[in-house]
């Protein structure tokens, strides 16, 4: 396990600000750069077989790093190289349409996640079984409760194993029983997938499963270390924030 499967080199990502006509002209004249820098010079190498965690405050750029890795935002500066098929678990049930049935939505969501028809047809019985929806699976999903939708989303999202799994805070959906089941499912997926990058606020879980953790603050990756070190460093950010 020596090969790196994710390499971020000096990745900088800026978000432009939406401007009216007058302020565009003003900024052109004064040559002011008003864009918001979401990531500043992030360097990161993740090796094959590693479970890597990212922690940081809200808005620090953890999710943005995952989105860069999954290709949603290409970096403005630097490079991001990835080897293998990536799957990002975030916002379970993206693209669900309320008036189509559970089965149709499972196929739709699966195809949005990049799976092909034969894969999905093969996994469909397992998805239906795991989501515990019973006869509701043939009802339009506007009749579902929020928890039922989340269960279906999770069942589809975790059905097919990618080479690299990115998890963005999707643990803890549904009722307590299902929450345990979903946690077990994600953990087993984490074990089966060679490489995992996850963002979570539940530090106890992160300590358990991560090999290394990176701390993100204000768009910078301020430190990478073993779980204990990183979590200590995270709390030190609050007391003075000397890590910059």
């Amino acid at each position, binding site marked *: *396990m020596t*090969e790196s*499967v994710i390499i971020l080199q000096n990745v900088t990502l800026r*978000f*432009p600000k*939406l401007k009216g006509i007058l302020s565009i002209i003003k900024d052109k004249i004064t040559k002011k750069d008003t864009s918001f820098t979401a990531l500043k010079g992030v360097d990161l190498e993740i090796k*094959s*077989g590693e479970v890597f965690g990212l922690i940081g405050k809200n808005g620090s750029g953890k999710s943005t790093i995952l*989105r*860069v*890795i*999954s*290709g*949603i*935002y*290409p*970096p403005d500066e630097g*490079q*991001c*190289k*990835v*080897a*293998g*098929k990536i799957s*990002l678990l*975030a*916002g379970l049930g*993206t*693209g669900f*349409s*309320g*008036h*189509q049935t559970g089965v*149709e939505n499972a*196929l*739709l969501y699966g*195809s*949005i*996640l*990049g799976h*092909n*028809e034969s894969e*999905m047809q093969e996994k469909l019985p397992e998805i239906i079984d795991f989501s515990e929806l019973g006869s509701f699976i043939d009802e339009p999903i506007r009749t579902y409760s929020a928890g039922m939708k989340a269960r279906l989303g999770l069942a589809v999202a975790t059905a097919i194993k990618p*080479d690299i799994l990115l998890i963005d805070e999707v643990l803890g959906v549904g009722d307590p029983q299902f929450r345990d089941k979903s946690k077990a499912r994600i953990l087993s997926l984490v074990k*089966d*997938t*060679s490489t995992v990058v996850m963002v979570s606020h539940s530090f106890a879980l992160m300590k358990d499963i991560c090999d290394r953790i990176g701390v993100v603050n204000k768009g910078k990756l301020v430190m990478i270390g073993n779980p204990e070190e990183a979590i200590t460093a995270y709390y030190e950010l609050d007391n003075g924030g000397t890590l910059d």
Partner: protein
Amino acid sequence: MVEPTLKVKVANVGSKPSSLKAPFYTIKDMFSNKFLIKNLVSREIRGKYRNAMLSYTWTFLEPALLAVVYYFLFYMLAGNPDELYSVWVLVGIIVWGCFGKSLSSTVTSLTRNRNTIHLVYFPRIIFPITSVIGNIVITMMSCLVIIPIMIIFDLPLTIYILLVPLSVLLAGFLAIGLGILLAPLNCIYRDVEHLIRFIVRAGFFVSPVMWTYEMALERGNFGEIATYNPMLTPITLARHGLEGRETTLPSEIIILTILFGIVMWIIGSILFERNERKAVKYL
């Protein structure tokens, strides 16, 4: 722990082939994402007619009702048009509707799907493609209204009837080039979709929807000006096809229209691929 299997090649995230190749590789993307496109199109169509008692009947009820309104309007203004006039208006509304709806839904395709764009990556050309395919399918369903019309007006069934679906395809194709050109821009400034809504409405009168190619020819110069409008070709071809006769539209106009569509696709797909990544940051 699983042994690393690195048979897969390293991909540089965010790097794409040269955008000059976009007109070709986007077509390849379409074919490799068939299943996704199929599901997204069915979501779009089902979404449109959800909870409607008449559901898909609306696809042809809507243009039929509009045709009645425009027939009376024109009857009052111009008086006593020929008996097939209402049919020509209906055909015009259907074919123009395919163009107009395709254009406005392509332009808004990225902004409407911003939740999906934020959470997963797949070639984003899929969104406008899906919008156009959805509209073409809906328009094809509304073409079923032609069957009762052919019976009522005693129109002959000939091979030329195939011109009707082909015209619908052509109208959708003409819309996509302009649509994908403007879709990224619409992510930044929504002014684009307001402007397009106006253009679609104004284009309705400029294009031969309520008038026909033959009417334009009778007005001398006006007939020549009308040929500069690319939408003249699909609408006129559909009318001639329904009438069951060989088209009297000069073939150079037909060829020019198709070339226009291809050129718009080339320009549109290149600019779409070039701007799409910058544009989604504004969503």
